[in-house]
C-alpha cells in the first residue's frame, strides 16, 4: 500500500551522522542559508547570527543510501516523517532508499554564543510544517541542483537538458545515473549564488501522498529507543520525591531506611532558591534517591521519611480560585486586559430585543504524557551529553549551559522520538534536576519521574470561568457579544510583560470576533501561585467550548437549527482581517461546517432519535468542524459517530494528517469527558491515571470519520492541535439534544450525571 521505509535501515547515531556529514569521500552535504521562524520566548541576543548559519540535512553516500535529517522533535505529530518527505520530494529521492535520522540539537560555537544549525527546532506546537515549508524545500532543491550539475559536467550536457526521477538523473539519450554515482562529484560543486527554484506543485511526487510513520517498524518491534530507554553503563538511576508545594521547604528528613536498601547509593537534596527560575520554570525542592537500578531507587524513595513545610501556596485550592474568579466577574472592577472592543456593546445592549447570558466553568488540567519526564546526563570535564525528551532542544541547551558553564558546542543534546509532549516538554525543570544531580555525584545520571510526580508537579493549564452575553436584535441578528474570562495566565514567570499575560488565555480573533459588530472580550487575572505552563490546544480548547456551546444555546433560544445559526453568523464567503495578522476566511469555515453536517445527516437533527451536535473553529489559518452523534443508555453516554472536517491548506502527508485529526479528537473527548485537576491546601489531589482517568476504549467512539478539504493552492498549516477545540462543544451540544441537559461545566460526565 503505502511506501514504507524498508526494514533494517541502518539507524546511525546522531554523532556518527554528523561526523559523516563533516567530511569523507562520496558524501554530499547540503545545507541551507535561510531565516526561519524564531522561537518566541528565546532572547534575540542568544540567537546571534544563527539565522544565516549553514546547516546539514541531506547525505547521499556512494552506496546509494540517502539519509535525511529530521530537525524537529517528534512527539507523535509525525514530523519525523513529514519534514524529510518535504526534502525528499524536492530532491527527487526514491523514498524507499531514504533513512531518517532524528537530528538532535544543532549548535555550534560562535564566539561563545550558540549558533543554531537548523533554525527552527521545536516540536508539538504546530509550527513545524509551516517553518519547513519556508526553508526545507530549498534544502532538497539545492541537493538536486548539485546532483544535476555533477551529471551535466560528466556528460557535457547542459543541466537543463537533464531530469531527475527517483534517485537517478536521466540524460536526453535515456542514460541513467544514480545519485550515488554522482554524490562525490556533486559534493565538490560550489554552491550557487541564488537558491535554485523549488518545484511547482504539479511536480510533487511525495508531498500530498500518504506515507506511514518512518518509525513504525521500530515501534511495533519494541526497538524504538525513547530517551527513557537509553543509558550509559555506569549511570545512576535517580528518582525524586518533590515537595508538594513549589515554594515549600524540607523540615525534616530521615534517610536511614533508604540508605539500607541494597542498590541505593546516595540521597541528595535539591534545594532551589525560592522562586528560582531555570529554563523559565519554577522548580520545587526535592529529595533525590540515586541507586544502581530503578527498582532499588523506587524502594529507597518509598522508605524516605520526609516532612515538608508549605510556603505561601499552601492555602490555595482550586475551589478558592474558582470563587475568586466568580467574585471578579460579579464585581465591577476593570478587567486586567481589554482584549478586544469592537463597536459599542453597551449601546447595542440597550437596543437589544433579547439578551442571553451564561457562565461556563472549566477545570485545571495536567499534561499527563505517556512517557514520564526523564533525562539522561553525562558530564565530562569539557563535554555534556544529554538525552532528553524535549520539545524545544534549544531551551534545554540553555538550561544545561547555565548549570554547567560549558561552551555552546560542548553541549550535546540528543532528542529521540518522544512519548507525548502537549507542551509539557517546553519546560525543562527535569533537565535542570538531572544536570544538578550529575554534577553532585560526578557520575552519569538517569533521572526518572513517576507518573505520580508528573501529575503532582506539572505546569498546569489554568481552570477558567467564562461569562458570556449575547445581544440579539429585533431581526434575530446577533449584534453584540461580550466575553469575560477569569483565569490564571500560563505566562507568568516567563519574561512576558504584564500587558501580554492574557495571550495564553484568550485570542482577540476567536469566534465570533469579526462577525459581530459589537464585540468585547475582557480578561481578569486570577491571583494564583500554582505553576502554569503552555498546553496543547491552549487557549482554543477552553474558549471554543464556551463559545461554541453558547452559540448552540443562542440557536436553541431562537428555536433555530444551530447549523443555520452558524451559517447566518458566518455570512457570505469573504476574508476578514484578523488583529493578529492573517485572515478569517468565512467561506472555508462554512465549508468545513457544511461538510460535517452533510456527512452526519444533519437534515434530520431535530427528529433524530440520537442527539446531534456541531461546532466549528479556526486556528492559525486552518479551519475545523466537528459533528457528533450521541445517545444515553442509562448513565452511559454512547458516542455513536464523530465526523471531523479540516482545511489546513496544502496537505503534506494525508495519512499523517488523518492520524493527527483522529488523535486530537479522541484526546479532546477524553479531556472533556473525564479530566480535572483539583488541589486543596496547595496540594494536587490526582496522583495516577485512576484519579486522572484518560478515556477508556469503551468511552470513546469506535471511529472518527475525517474529511480533509483539498486546498493545495494555500501553504500548509500545522495540524497537531487543530482538531482539539471543537470536539468538546460538539459533544456537549449533542448531549443537550439527547438529554435536554446543558452542560456548562467540565468534565462533562461528572456534571451530566449530577444534572440528569
Amino acid at each position: 500500500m503505502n511506501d514504507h521505509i524498508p526494514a533494517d535501515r541502518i539507524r546511525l547515531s546522531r554523532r556518527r551522522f554528523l561526523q559523516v556529514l563533516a567530511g569523507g569521500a562520496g558524501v554530499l552535504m547540503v545545507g541551507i542559508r535561510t531565516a526561519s521562524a524564531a522561537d518566541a520566548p528565546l532572547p534575540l541576543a542568544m540567537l546571534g547570527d544563527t539565522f544565516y548559519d549553514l546547516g546539514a540535512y541531506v547525505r547521499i553516500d556512494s552506496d546509494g543510501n540517502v539519509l535525511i535529517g529530521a530537525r524537529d522533535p517528534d512527539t507523535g505529530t509525525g514530523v519525523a516523517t513529514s519534514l524529510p518527505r518535504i526534502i525528499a520530494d524536492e530532491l527527487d529521492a526514491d523514498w524507499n532508499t531514504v533513512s531518517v535520522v532524528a537530528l538532535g540539537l544543532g549548535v555550534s560555537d560562535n564566539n561563545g554564543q550558540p549558533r543554531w544549525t537548523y533554525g527552527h527546532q521545536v516540536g508539538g506546537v504546530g509550527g513545524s510544517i509551516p517553518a519547513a515549508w519556508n526553508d526545507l524545500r530549498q534544502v532538497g532543491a539545492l541537493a538536486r541542483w548539485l546532483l544535476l550539475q555533477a551529471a551535466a559536467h560528466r556528460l557535457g550536457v547542459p543541466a537543463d537538458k537533464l531530469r531527475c526521477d527517483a534517485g537517478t538523473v536521466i540524460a536526453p539519450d535515456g542514460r541513467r545515473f544514480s545519485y550515488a554515482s554522482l554524490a562525490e562529484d556533486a559534493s565538490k560543486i560550489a554552491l550557487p549564488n541564488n537558491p535554485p527554484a523549488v518545484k511547482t506543485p504539479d511536480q510533487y511526487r511525495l508531498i500530498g501522498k500518504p506515507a506511514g510513520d518512518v518509525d513504525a517498524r521500530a515501534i511495533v518491534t519494541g526497538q524504538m529507543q525513547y530517551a527513557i530507554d537509553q543509558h550509559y553503563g555506569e549511570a545512576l538511576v535517580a528518582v525524586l520525591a518533590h515537595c508538594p508545594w513549589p515554594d515549600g521547604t524540607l523540615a525534616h528528613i530521615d534517610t536511614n531506611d533508604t540508605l539500607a536498601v541494597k542498590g541505593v547509593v546516595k540521597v541528595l537534596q535539591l534545594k532551589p532558591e525560592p522562586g528560582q527560575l531555570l529554563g523559565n520554570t519554577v522548580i520545587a525542592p526535592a529529595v533525590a534517591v540515586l541507586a544502581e537500578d530503578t527498582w532499588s531507587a523506587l524502594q529507597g524513595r518509598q522508605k524516605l521519611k520526609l516532612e515538608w513545610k508549605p510556603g505561601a501556596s499552601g492555602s490555595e485550592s482550586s475551589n478558592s480560585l474558582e470563587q475568586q474568579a466568580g467574585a471578579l466577574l460579579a464585581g465591577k472592577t476593570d478587567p486586567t486586559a481589554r482584549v478586544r472592543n469592537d463597536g459599542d456593546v453597551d449601546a447595542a445592549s440597550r437596543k437589544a430585543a433579547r439578551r442571553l447570558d451564561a457562565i461556563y466553568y472549566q477545570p485545571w488540567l495536567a499534561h499527563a504524557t505517556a512517557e514520564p519526564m526523564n533525562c539522561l546526563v553525562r558530564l565530562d570535564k569539557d563535554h555534556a551529553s544529554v538525552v532528553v525528551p524535549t520539545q524545544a532542544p534549544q531551551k534545554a541547551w540553555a538550561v544545561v549551559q547555565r548549570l554547567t558553564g560549558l561552551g555552546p558546542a560542548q553541549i550535546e543534546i540528543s532528542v529521540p522520538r518522544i512519548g507525548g509532549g502537549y507542551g509539557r516538554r517546553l519546560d525543562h525543570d527535569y533537565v535542570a534536576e538531572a544536570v544538578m544531580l550529575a554534577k553532585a555525584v560526578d557520575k552519569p545520571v538517569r533521572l526518572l519521574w513517576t507518573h505520580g510526580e508528573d501529575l503532582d508537579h506539572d505546569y498546569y493549564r489554568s481552570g477558567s470561568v467564562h461569562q458570556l452575553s449575547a445581544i440579539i436584535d429585533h431581526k434575530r441578528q446577533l449584534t453584540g457579544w461580550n466575553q469575560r474570562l477569569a483565569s490564571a495566565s500560563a505566562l507568568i514567570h516567563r519574561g512576558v510583560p504584564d500587558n501580554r499575560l492574557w495571550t495564553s488565555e484568550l485570542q482577540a480573533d476567536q469566534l465570533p470576533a469579526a462577525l459581530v459588530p459589537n464585540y468585547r472580550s475582557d480578561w481578569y487575572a486570577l491571583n494564583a501561585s500554582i505553576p502554569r505552563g503552555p498546553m496543547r490546544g491552549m487557549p482554543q480548547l477552553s474558549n471554543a467550548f464556551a463559545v461554541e456551546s453558547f452559540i448552540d444555546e443562542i440557536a436553541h433560544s431562537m428555536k433555530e437549527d444551530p447549523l443555520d445559526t452558524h451559517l447566518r453568523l458566518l455570512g457570505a464567503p469573504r476574508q476578514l482581517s484578523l488583529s493578529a495578522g492573517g485572515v478569517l476566511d468565512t467561506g472555508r469555515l462554512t465549508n468545513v461546517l457544511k461538510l460535517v453536517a452533510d456527512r452526519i445527516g444533519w437534515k434530520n437533527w431535530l427528529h433524530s432519535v440520537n442527539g446531534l451536535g456541531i461546532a466549528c473553529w479556526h486556528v492559525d489559518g486552518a479551519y475545523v468542524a466537528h459533528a457528533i452523534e450521541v445517545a444515553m443508555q442509562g448513565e452511559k453516554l454512547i458516542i455513536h459517530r464523530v465526523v471531523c472536517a479540516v482545511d489546513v491548506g496544502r496537505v503534506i502527508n494525508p495519512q499523517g494528517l488523518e492520524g493527527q485529526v483522529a488523535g486530537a479528537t479522541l484526546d479532546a473527548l477524553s479531556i472533556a469527558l473525564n479530566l480535572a485537576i483539583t488541589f486543596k491546601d496547595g496540594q494536587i489531589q490526582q496522583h495516577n491515571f485512576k484519579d486522572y482517568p484518560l478515556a477508556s476504549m469503551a468511552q470513546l467512539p469506535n471511529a472518527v470519520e475525517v474529511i480533509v478539504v483539498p486546498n493545495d493552492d494555500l501553504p500548509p498549516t500545522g495540524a497537531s492541535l487543530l482538531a482539539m477545540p471543537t470536539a468538546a462543544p460538539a459533544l456537549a451540544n449533542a448531549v443537550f439534544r439527547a438529554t435536554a441537559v446543558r452542560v456548562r461545566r467540565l468534565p462533562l460526565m461528572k456534571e451530566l450525571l449530577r444534572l440528569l
Partner: protein
Amino acid sequence: MAPVQAQAVPVTSENAIVPEKARDGIDLEINAERYRHTGDPQMPLLWYLRDVLRLTGTKYAGMRGETGADLVLLNGKAVSAVAQPMAKLAGKSVTTVEGLAANDGSLHPVQQAFIDEDAIGCGYCTPGWLIAAVDLLRRKPNPSDDDIDQLPNLCRCGCQTRVRRAIKRVAAGKAGQA
C-alpha cells in the same frame, strides 16, 4: 631466535582459577530464551526487563501499570509487568513486544496490522496495545466491538480508533494487504 617456551605455572590453592558455581536464581524463559535472575526476588519483571536485560520495548506505565504500556504475555496471557515480582516467575514463559516477530524478522500479523492501519501515535504505549491485542485475538479470534472495548490500555495520542481497525484487520486475515 628460539621460540619462547611456554612456562607452566604450578597450580596452588592460592592461584587456582576455579569457575564460580552457578548462582542460585529464578529461571525463566523470555522470548524463547532462558534467563536466570540472581538479584532481588521482589524486583518486578518490568525493571528486570528494562534495567537488567535492557529489553526496553516494555515501557514504564505507572506504578500500577495504569496505562497498559507495560503489558507482557505471561504464559500467553497479558499481564502488567510491574505487577509481577520475579519470585513468582520461576519456570514461567514471558513474551515481550520484542518477541512477537519471528526469528527471521517477519512481523506478527498484529504488528503488521498496526503498521497498515497507522495505529501509532507517539508510539510509547504501542507495545502494550500490541500485547493486549495479541492476547485478545488468542482468546477471541473474531472479537466484537464490545470485546475490543475491554482492552485496558490508555493512550493520550488518540490511537484507539486505529487500534480497533488494526485488530479487525487481523481478524479478517488481511494484515499486510493493502
